[in-house]
């Protein structure tokens, strides 16, 4: 039978089309749902083990959008007037920038009771963001290529690593720690003072160039080459990735440098004027509970924020890692990125 359009049929079709288009938002409004923006590397663990128990207990559906911290910040900036994210998980210096731009709102124990049970040092700016775990940053190396391990940060400047290092670009947060190490090696000052010796750091970083196989902006690029032995080492890589892969039998490890390891806090925050604020607070609270905190320690080998969770052997407590001045990093990083491009990665 041929379709013969008339006014009534067209009106009917229009109504049906409008209903079909509006249906997703109507359904979304009825079912409680929050959108969480977090690291892409944690997407699997979040979707498989962190989010399901929360959804079962609360009846709130969680959509996890995995991306880089910089991309999550841009989402917050572009959606400032009508945010779609309710919760955001980013590196601390990016979180600082979001906080300065009034893109976040403080959490309190009334809505997030677990805040009263975690280590006080984990709460930043009166709850504007919370360091829910602290990965350790040091040198990742292939155990077949470097069977004796790597004792110190200074070693990766040595000739045995010529053309065999995958070095992170300055747009990756851990690179600021490599800059601090370079400044420390150049000046002999402790990390606490060396982190401000930026010029000396850049001068020393230039000396590492003959050892560089490539500068990466996507972690997986370096990780693949490291695991296959094309790259011998990746300076400034984090425990969450290295130790998890090591536990799966991949021949890589994270060293404990004589000069010390760095803390790279993972932070979580409520989005200012984000939808479903109560659901968002419940999710942040869930991230701080003992079972989930234990998950960070046992699966990711990161230092938990909850004192009731035994981190286990091999996991350095957050207070024994050097934590950089993230305010200083956040202010200067855009300029460092441009300088890195011109002086180091050129």
């Amino acid at each position, binding site marked *: 039978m041929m379709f013969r359009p008339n006014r009534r049929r067209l009106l009917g079709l229009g109504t049906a089309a409008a209903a079909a288009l509006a249906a997703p938002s109507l359904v979304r409004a009825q079912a409680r749902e929050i959108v969480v923006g977090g690291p892409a590397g944690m997407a699997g663990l979040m979707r498989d083990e962190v989010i399901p128990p929360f959804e079962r207990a609360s009846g709130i559906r969680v959509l996890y959008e995995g991306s*880089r911290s*910089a*991309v999550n910040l*841009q989402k917050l900036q572009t959606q400032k007037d009508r945010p779609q994210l309710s919760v955001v998980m980013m590196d601390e210096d990016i979180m600082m920038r979001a906080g300065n731009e009034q893109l976040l709102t403080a959490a309190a124990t009334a809505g997030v009771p677990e805040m009263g049970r975690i280590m006080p040092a984990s709460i930043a700016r009166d709850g504007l963001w919370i360091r829910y775990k602290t990965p350790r940053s040091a040198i990742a190396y292939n155990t077949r290529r470097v069977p004796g391990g790597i004792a110190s940060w200074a070693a990766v400047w040595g000739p045995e690593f010529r*053309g065999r290092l995958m070095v992170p*670009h300055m*747009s990756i947060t851990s690179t600021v720690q490599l800059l601090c190490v370079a400044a420390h090696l150049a000046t002999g000052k402790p990390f606490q003072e060396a982190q401000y010796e930026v010029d000396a750091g850049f001068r020393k970083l230039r000396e590492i160039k003959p050892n*560089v*196989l*490539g*500068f*990466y*902006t*996507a972690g997986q*690029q370096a990780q*693949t*080459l490291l695991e*296959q032995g*094309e790259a011998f080492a990746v300076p400034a890589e984090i425990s969450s990735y290295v130790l998890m892969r090591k536990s799966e039998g991949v021949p890589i490890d994270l060293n404990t440098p004589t000069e010390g390891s760095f803390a790279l806090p993972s932070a979580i925050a409520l989005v200012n004027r984000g939808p479903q604020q109560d659901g968002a607070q419940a999710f942040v609270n869930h991230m701080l509970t003992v079972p989930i905190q234990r998950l960070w320690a046992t699966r990711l080998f990161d230092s938990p924020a909850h004192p009731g969770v035994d981190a286990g052997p091999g996991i350095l407590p957050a207070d024994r890692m050097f934590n950089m001045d993230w305010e200083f990093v956040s202010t200067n990083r*855009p300029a460092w*990125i*441009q300088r890195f*491009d*011109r002086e180091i*990665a*050129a």
Partner: protein
Amino acid sequence: MTQQRIDPVAWLAAPAAAYFLVVLGLPLALLLAASFRTGDGIGLAHYARILGDPFERGVILATLRYAALVTLACAVFGYVYAYAMARASAAVQALLLVAIVLPMTVSVIVKTFGWTILLRSNGPVNSALLAIGAIDEPLRLLFTETGLVFGTASILLPYMVLPVFAVLRQIPPEQHDAAATLGAAPVEAFIRVVLPLTLPGVIAGVAIVFSMTVSAYVIPSLLTGAGYKTLSKAIANAFLVIYNPGLGAAAGVILLAIAMAIVMAAGAAAARLGRTA
């Protein structure tokens, strides 16, 4: 004077035109507006910075060089492939066509990661060169311009092969035979008869491959990381890393202008060939 009426059939293009106006024209207009926005108001500061800074100019030149090398590689290898395909028997032609089209169904990320395996120090390329005694020790191919050019060319090769093949298959073999009858050697017959007739296909392929290379982001990011600077990487950097959307928008406009200039030049060259043919 009689008023020329618009063919009613032409209105069928209206929905597509409206769609492109919204999804392409509007974002481009916003991009253009953003490129003039500076901290103090409106001006050309971002363009002055890009065009006045030797480092930024170097990025533009590196992008053009990369696109030119990839286009050259595609033109050489693609033409030979298309010629062989046009001259092959029906069965072999079908096989060659599948071989060139099938990789297009695979994600560019997968193909690029495949190249990182090929280019490793102990990968197939180095192993083959070592085996035939061409080199004494493995070459460094990963994160180099050589690896980038060959990796990109292999991925974009179909976009050169297909337009050249489309033109080649329309040339009757008798033309080549006629040239031979008139005394032209095979090479001369190819250069004076076949090549000029296939130039419209080559120009189309050049326009497509050059435009795709000049704006490529994923391939250079995966094959060279942050070491090899291109305009597309600079745009992403400006928006996502140094938080300077005006600079990123200006770089985007420059990239668009380069791509448009190439496409328009190719269009003009094809039209000129059409007139002289």
